[in-house]
């Protein structure tokens, strides 16, 4: 039987050196006893590292090292032996580390999980107390970690409380930070830390007030904040009374008779209802139309959209450009043609020497129709009924702007302007006379260009869009 004496309870390096040597010698796990020897000068110290070339070469997978570093901090007495068993088996079963269902590996993973949880709870439940009458300020905490994580967690506190002098005392070890370096020393006694802090009264006030008695669920609380931590948490002493009174407080709330709202409040609500309502009377200015469209309920698209996107441009523009409907970005900004399709249109305009600022740019449908797909909103083509419902707004814009030329981009725009469908390919290229004297030019919608997969077809359609922009401009 081989006895390995490690230097401390968390002596990972010692375990690693010994494990390496034992493995090289071919000592099986059942022939090793692992102990922790505080007296380093006693006999039977850890085996020396193996001589170069001793035993078969073997590289330990990094995930195992990461796991072992955590497992060593577990308070379980079998941790060193379990890790050596895993090391032994890893040499013989290289796939072991990738098999989360293996019983030994599961046990090690559970131990590591316990350690991670203890580390996390230490970050959460340490409570510093200000040491009275010391300048500059010094903070101290007494804490009892579930596993031996104090040294491992200390750097977290240094990163967080960099500008503070602090120390954390535990039964295993103490760590202290002076603003520059972390110092580790032996375990201490609760009496070495301050017993009170004036802020704790405020903290308890907060703890009691943020608790909602109507949702009492002590089981859940205890699952996340086990009782073993309570004695060092200043707020925990309130728990019994809070639980005890919860039922009574909830019952009082439910029984209490509601107060009638005040006159003043009712009046305000009525005012709001009046101002927010959307009358069916025709808007007289573009500004009015833009505001009224926000409360439009002529179809159901308002529900899922952020806002109506009204047209924009000079109120007396000679040319009006009509697209299909707002997209994702238009819906968020409230402005037409600012997304990918808008950028493509801008590019085509630049090529056609077309000044966008002189055109009134709008859409046949004012709300964004889409369907959720995971974290995205996928564009959906508005149906005939929605286009029809929204013609009310498009007609109002046409009536007020009175453009000489209307450039309709895509089938929905054509439908919005004329009330019927026309194939784009056959209707584009020549102006069409509209009732009331304006002329209609039909072209591709830029988002259609973004979707055409074939590069040649895309280039052709783009060139036609540029031509149509030129044509529309020439008619003004």
């Amino acid at each position, binding site marked *: 039987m081989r006895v390995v004496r490690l230097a401390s309870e968390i002596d990972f390096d010692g375990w690693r050196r010994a494990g390496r040597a034992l493995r090289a010698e071919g000592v099986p796990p059942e022939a090793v006893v692992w102990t922790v020897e505080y007296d380093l000068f006693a006999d039977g110290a850890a085996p020396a590292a193996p001589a170069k070339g001793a035993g078969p070469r073997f590289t330990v997978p990094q995930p195992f090292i990461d796991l072992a570093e955590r497992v060593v901090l577990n308070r379980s007495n079998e941790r060193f032996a379990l890790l050596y068993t895993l090391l032994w088996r890893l040499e013989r079963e290289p796939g072991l580390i990738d098999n989360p269902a293996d019983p030994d590996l599961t046990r090690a993973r559970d131990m590591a999980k316990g350690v991670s949880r203890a580390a996390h709870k230490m970050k959460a439940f*340490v409570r510093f107390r200000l040491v009275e009458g010391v300048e500059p300020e010094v903070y101290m905490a007494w804490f009892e970690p579930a596993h031996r994580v104090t040294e491992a967690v200390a750097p977290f506190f240094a990163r967080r409380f960099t500008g503070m002098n602090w120390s954390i005392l535990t039964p295993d070890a103490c760590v202290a930070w002076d603003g520059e370096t972390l110092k580790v020393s032996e375990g201490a006694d609760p009496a070495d830390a301050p017993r009170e802090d004036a802020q704790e009264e405020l903290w308890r006030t907060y703890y009691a007030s943020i608790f909602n008695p*109507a949702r009492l669920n002590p089981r859940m609380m205890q699952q996340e904040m086990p009782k073993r931590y309570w004695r060092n948490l200043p707020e925990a002493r309130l728990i019994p009374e809070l639980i005890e009174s919860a039922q009574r407080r909830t019952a009082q709330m439910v029984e209490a008779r509601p107060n009638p709202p005040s006159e003043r409040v009712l009046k305000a609500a009525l005012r709001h209802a009046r101002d927010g309502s959307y009358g069916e009377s025709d808007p007289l200015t573009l500004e009015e139309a833009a505001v009224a469209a926000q409360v439009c309920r002529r179809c159901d698209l308002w529900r899922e959209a952020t806002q109506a996107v009204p047209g924009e441009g000079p109120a007396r523009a000679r040319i009006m450009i009509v697209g299909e409907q707002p997209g994702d970005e238009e819906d968020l900004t409230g402005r037409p043609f600012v997304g990918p399709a808008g950028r493509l249109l801008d590019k085509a305009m630049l090529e056609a020497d077309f000044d966008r600022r002189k055109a009134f740019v709008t859409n046949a449908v004012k709300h964004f129709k889409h369907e959720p797909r995971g974290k995205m909103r996928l564009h959906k083509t508005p149906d005939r009924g929605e286009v029809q419902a929204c013609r009310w707004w498009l007609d109002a814009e046409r009536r007020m702007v009175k453009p000489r030329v209307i450039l309709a981009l895509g089938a929905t725009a054509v439908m919005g302007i004329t009330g019927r469908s026309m194939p784009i390919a056959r209707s584009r290229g020549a102006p069409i006379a509209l009732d009331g004297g304006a002329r209609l030019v039909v072209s591709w919608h830029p988002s259609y260009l973004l979707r055409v997969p074939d590069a040649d077809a895309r280039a052709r359609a783009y060139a036609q869009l540029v031509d149509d922009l030129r044509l529309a401009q020439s008619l003004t």
Partner: protein
Amino acid sequence: MSAMAVLDLKRKLAILSDAAKYDASCASSGAEKRNSLSGPEGRGKGVGSTEGMGICHAYAPDGRCISLLKILLTNFCIYDCAYCINRVSSNAPRARFTVKEVVDLTLNFYKRNYIEGLFLSSGVIQTGDYTMEEMVRVAKSLRLDHDFRGYIHLKLIPEASPELAAEAGLYADRVSINIELPQDESLTILAPEKDPAGIKRAMGRMRLSIEDHNEPAKKAGKRKFATSQSTQLIVGADAARDSDILARSANLYGAYKLRRVYYSAFSPIPDAASRLPSMRPPLMREHRLYQADWLMRFYGFTQGEIVEPGEDLDLTVDPKTAWALRHRGDFPVDVNTADRDTLLRTPGLGTRGVDRILSARRQTRLTLADVKRVCGSTKRAQPFIVTADWTPGGLTDAKGLKASLIVPEQLSLF
């Protein structure tokens, strides 16, 4: 001198944290990683860090995480939202913190490791802009005067100007605007002064600000603009069905790239308004909504698959089990051969369990005991899976299957 002026800090804290507790959100996760020891801005003069994972520093007896100092700047409010304890017509005692009081309280709590940071909300006083300005002053002072590098969450006042909202984003890690009610129509009834369209527009602007700011800041190695926004829906204060609520969530996630939608079971509040239902909904309903929300975000389910229009979720079993019970023909699935998407749709298998199954089965043919080791339990999964040594036989189609999967309710209060 009014009674207000003599309220001491402790009393104010009690009033203004009591008033904040109906906000479910307490997350301190997902902020950019930073600390006081080092970073693009060098070593900090003060305290604070955020390391990705949030930390719950305590749990209240309601089982909820206490991570942030969650308070209102003031609970005076000019609005009258029926579900809100701070509505103007409520008789709740009123208080107001000064900017400095909030800053000091945050730092004092933080330095004692009580909290991860601040979650500041407020009733609306004078105007939306005035209120928002005060809140921004708190965050600004923490960041600039005290080099505070902990977590800050600011609640936006929807009607505050876009410029102020953008400034809030400069100092906060997360911002949120509560939609509160799943249906715009009920918002009009229960919160007459709240404008649902205005809320949506503000969220849309915030999503654009977050996207516009963070790319260049990342490249320049500078402190990031707020990295996320979230919202809260109150469940059970209006007639909305779970299908309506989940449809609203799906819409919010897609439209405004929210990090989280919080569901808060409407809770009886002191001095409730008469427009509200007198019964509270079962907490289980809120729980089921969170599970359904998870299914949409991490398990590849669409909202329509989880619950039919006009329907509520089944309170007795979790929504994935409910779906599996409606689709028994798709089961059992063989954990040794099924693809990832199919495993994710199997009751009792979580995302981590599924990943472990995929990894383990490259090494070995999984037995029921193996599945238990990687997933923790096989109680729910067992009727729906086949392993090397287990097949459910007629169990998958058994009449009494649902009854056997119902976990006795433990969330209820009385």
